[in-house]
């Protein structure tokens, strides 16, 4: 299996220890442009630890994360200067949190939430910022007359969509999602998944998606990693892993899904 494209992100021997306890251990993978990688596993298996390490929010104990920026240069995330790292986080990357309260400013309007990244990179024209924000609200199916309302007044599904707009406004190339559909009821989940799938395809985004919901990865992810006790026990194409699980834990996981 060969590919001519250079990986967007290369992860090598990544480990994070919490004292003597393992967060995640010996993680190795490449993420290619336009690829959506799903990470599944039970609670406590190290999914979120891994995601935080990848997205430069938690320094790993050992190993490296190398990201190829827009100019084609490889950046070792944890060797780069902090300002470089934070600039990447604001422009090239997005993080969608499970709880919208972690990813939104609840006390400022939806428009300001979406516009924050634009202002952070130096846009200083109110009219333009507002127009872009309004446009993005439309793209995530939030009525445009809600642009001046605070996220506190939004439903859970709307908050989650606002969070997505806030991240995508800067035209990121890589989005990290931690249980983006957690806490939403199934019909809202379906709509959000639909939206995410469309945006990811339209914008050619790469994404790392952490979830315990196998249906979500089946729908969104091209490739799947199964984590168990801090380690990757199985990885491959999503359909292949879910339809023909090899590892005992994956078999357990797949057979545990409730069928309505």
């Amino acid at each position, binding site marked *: 299996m060969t590919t001519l494209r250079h990986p967007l992100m290369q992860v090598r021997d990544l480990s994070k220890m919490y004292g003597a306890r393992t967060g995640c251990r010996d993680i190795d993978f490449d993420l290619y442009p336009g690829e959506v990688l799903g990470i599944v596993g039970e609670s406590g298996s190290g999914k979120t630890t891994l995601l935080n390490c990848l997205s430069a929010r938690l320094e790993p104990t050992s190993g490296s994360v190398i990201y190829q920026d827009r100019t084609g240069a490889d950046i070792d995330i944890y060797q780069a200067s*902090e*300002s470089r790292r*934070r600039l990447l986080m*604001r422009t090239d990357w997005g993080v969608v949190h499970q709880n919208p309260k972690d990813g939104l*400013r609840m006390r*400022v*309007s939806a*428009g*300001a939430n979406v*516009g*924050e*990244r634009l*202002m*952070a*990179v*130096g846009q*200083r*024209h*109110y*009219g333009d*910022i*507002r127009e872009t924000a309004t446009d993005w609200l439309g793209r995530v199916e939030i009525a445009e007359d809600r*642009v*001046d309302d605070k996220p506190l007044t939004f439903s859970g599904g709307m908050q989650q969509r606002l969070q997505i707009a806030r991240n995508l406004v800067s035209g990121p190339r890589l989005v990290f999602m931690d249980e983006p559909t957690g806490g939403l009821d199934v019909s809202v989940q379906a709509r959000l998944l639909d939206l995410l799938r469309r945006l990811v395809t339209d914008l050619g985004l790469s994404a790392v998606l952490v979830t315990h919901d196998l249906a979500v990865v089946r729908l969104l992810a091209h490739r799947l990693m199964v984590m168990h006790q801090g380690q990757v026990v199985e990885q491959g194409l999503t359909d292949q892993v879910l339809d023909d699980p090899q590892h005992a834990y994956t078999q357990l996981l797949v057979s545990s899904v409730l069928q309505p």
Partner: protein
Amino acid sequence: MNPQQETTLSGYNFAYLDEQTKRMIRRAILKAVAIPGYQVPFGSREMPLPYGWGTGGIQVTAAIIGAQDILKVIDQGADDTTNAVSIRKFFARTTGVETTDKTARATVIQTRHRIPEKPLTENQILVYQVPTPEPLRWLEPRETETRRMHALEEYGVMHVKLYEDIAQYGRISTSYDYPVQVNDRYIMAPSPIPKFDNPKMNEMPALQLFGAGREKRIYAIPPYTTVKSLDFDDHPFEVQAWDHSCALCGADDSFLDEVVVDNMGSRMFVCSDSDFCSERREAGHQSDGLPQVVVAQAAE
């Protein structure tokens, strides 16, 4: 400095603070002057007045005042308000320095919430009392995070605040403590002065020192430093304007206070800078014959 000279209150060191403390504060001030707009932590002392009454400003003044200085203290522009009177009396008793109401005569001016109308000179130092030195606090409650934002010059979030103003009120409604960028680098809270005074900070010949006692921070703007008020390209910074002129001296270019004068809600507009107003009246200016008091409509 010559301690104990003409101290009118026995048993205290010159300007209340001991010499070691004053040195510590001066070191903080020197650092603050070297890095315009940067908040320097310092070991704020207990002062014989409550936090919020000017403990930061009073410590800065105590550290820099000398026996030859002439001190002026203003609160909201006025020399005769409680805060100003007690701080002036405090320094008169602990240092024996001459005090004055006249802006032009003073060498050290401690202020709360105003910059005098009369332009200051190179021979003067303006000391501000600051309640909240951190301009980013409104959007970022973590001190560790705001320090990092200052260090990395991540100031986009300041504009979120201004954006929110325009979205809610159609204009930038922040009218005091309006954030400024000092020397094209640090974002700084100018203390709760009205934004009317912001342009005076730019290229000011006098040294400006800011002391926050409760928050234990000192910062400074050296003379002739660029101070820019934040704004948007399509919503430029502008200062307050009044439909009235001062009811006493007739000035139409000063910051006016609205004073309620009776139970009916009648009110008058007068200069907030009491020295500026009285000097103008002494020079023969007065209100131009318009009704000095805006009488409230009688309630039915």
